[in-house]
């Protein structure tokens, strides 16, 4: 999606950007943008992610996510080695703050502006889009992150990390579409274990909202998907967090089917992988699939798992 022109001079008292000038309206129409959509706003000098809204009179404006603001032109004193050095340091940093994430977004923009051709060629396809998506996810802007993750998968459709992130973001923003995509991926024999772990997760979340009758049918589907996961390419190198997630989802589904002992067996397997997993420890004491179980499942799935 192309950025939408915005005149940042035309701001409301609450710092929303009016999108009613001709330049903005032309871009909104061309992009088929409607209220509720997330877009990138730009005046050619800066860019910021924003949600498009409309007031009672139908006038459109953007509500910026200011932590995504970047300056398009590099500062004069910056050079490519300086930008690359700071970017690498931040990308390697564990436990980045929100300020660090915003800085990564800025540095990625300047990296693209300053990098010589040979440096750009050395970067794997989809790398910058994937990093932007990861930053936007960390900042909680899932719709913007999804747009970047999609671009990463388009640029490199074979990279499991990119597909995993795309699926995870799709699940957070549109569960129905995520389920549709998961079905497609499960039917593709080349889909690897990392991506299949997220497919199972999507199905597990979907079946939570089903009636008992529908649940039985989908539970069988889940078992088939788990079997696919267990035999998928890359299963030998799967991250323990993702393996634990599949075990947890299977355990929860068994609990809902009143197979309490079998469910506990899977929670115990998680504890074999990570004896300090408090959610798995609590799950062991569950006797019913009730509100406490659903709450535990939410806590477990809220963990940010990396496919890297």
């Amino acid at each position, binding site marked *: 999606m192309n950025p939408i022109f915005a*005149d940042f001079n035309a*701001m*409301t008292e609450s*710092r929303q950007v009016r999108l*009613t000038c001709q*330049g903005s309206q032309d871009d909104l129409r061309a992009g088929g943008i409607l209220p509720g959509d997330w877009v990138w706003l730009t005046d050619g000098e800066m860019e910021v992610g924003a949600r498009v809204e409309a007031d009672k009179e139908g006038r459109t404006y953007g509500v910026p996510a200011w932590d995504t603001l970047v300056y398009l032109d590099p500062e004069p004193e910056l050079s490519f080695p300086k930008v690359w050095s700071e970017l690498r340091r931040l990308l390697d940093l564990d436990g980045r703050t929100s300020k660090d994430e915003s800085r990564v977004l800025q540095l990625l923009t300047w990296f693209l502006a300053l990098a010589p051709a040979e440096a750009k060629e050395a970067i794997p396809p989809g790398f910058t889009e994937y990093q932007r998506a990861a930053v936007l996810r960390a900042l909680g802007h899932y719709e913007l992150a999804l747009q970047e993750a999609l671009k990463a998968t388009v640029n490199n459709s074979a990279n499991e990390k990119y597909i995993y992130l795309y699926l995870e973001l799709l699940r957070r923003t549109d569960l129905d579409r995520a389920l549709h995509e998961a079905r497609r991926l499960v039917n593709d024999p080349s889909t690897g274990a990392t991506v299949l772990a997220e497919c199972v997760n999507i199905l597990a979340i979907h079946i939570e909202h089903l009636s008992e009758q529908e649940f039985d049918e989908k539970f069988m589907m889940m078992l088939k998907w788990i079997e696919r996961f267990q035999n998928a390419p890359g299963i030998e190198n799967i991250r323990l967090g993702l393996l634990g997630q599949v075990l947890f989802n299977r355990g929860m589904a068994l609990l809902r089917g009143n197979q309490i002992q079998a469910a506990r067996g899977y929670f115990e397997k998680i504890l074999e992988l990570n004896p300090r997993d408090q959610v798995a420890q609590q799950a062991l004491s569950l006797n019913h699939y009730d509100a406490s179980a659903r709450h535990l499942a939410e806590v477990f799935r809220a963990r940010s798992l990396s496919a890297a």
Partner: protein
Amino acid sequence: MVRCGQPPFDQPKPLHERCDEHDGVYGFSVQSRENQTLEALAVWCLNTRIGVTTVGVIRERGYEVVVTSGSGFHATVIVPRDWTPEAARQLAESFEDRENPVAKAERHR
């Protein structure tokens, strides 16, 4: 008077396409108030570059400036609804290109 962004404000869209109706008048947005310093006006601009001029210069060129609702010291330079690209380009020449004197971290978001 300050307008955020680099004069002549024609990339990626020309100035006449940046005009809109504000409180019943049609024109483009600026930061402008009597007895305010350049810094007090520029703090409402996130841009690194700003355009600077005076209300007097704008009036000399046959345009009016009125205070309208918006963030900071928002005002509108009133222009005709059928303002031509050439007239817009000429008025944009009234703005001097300067670096925003306010540090990035201190500009209002």
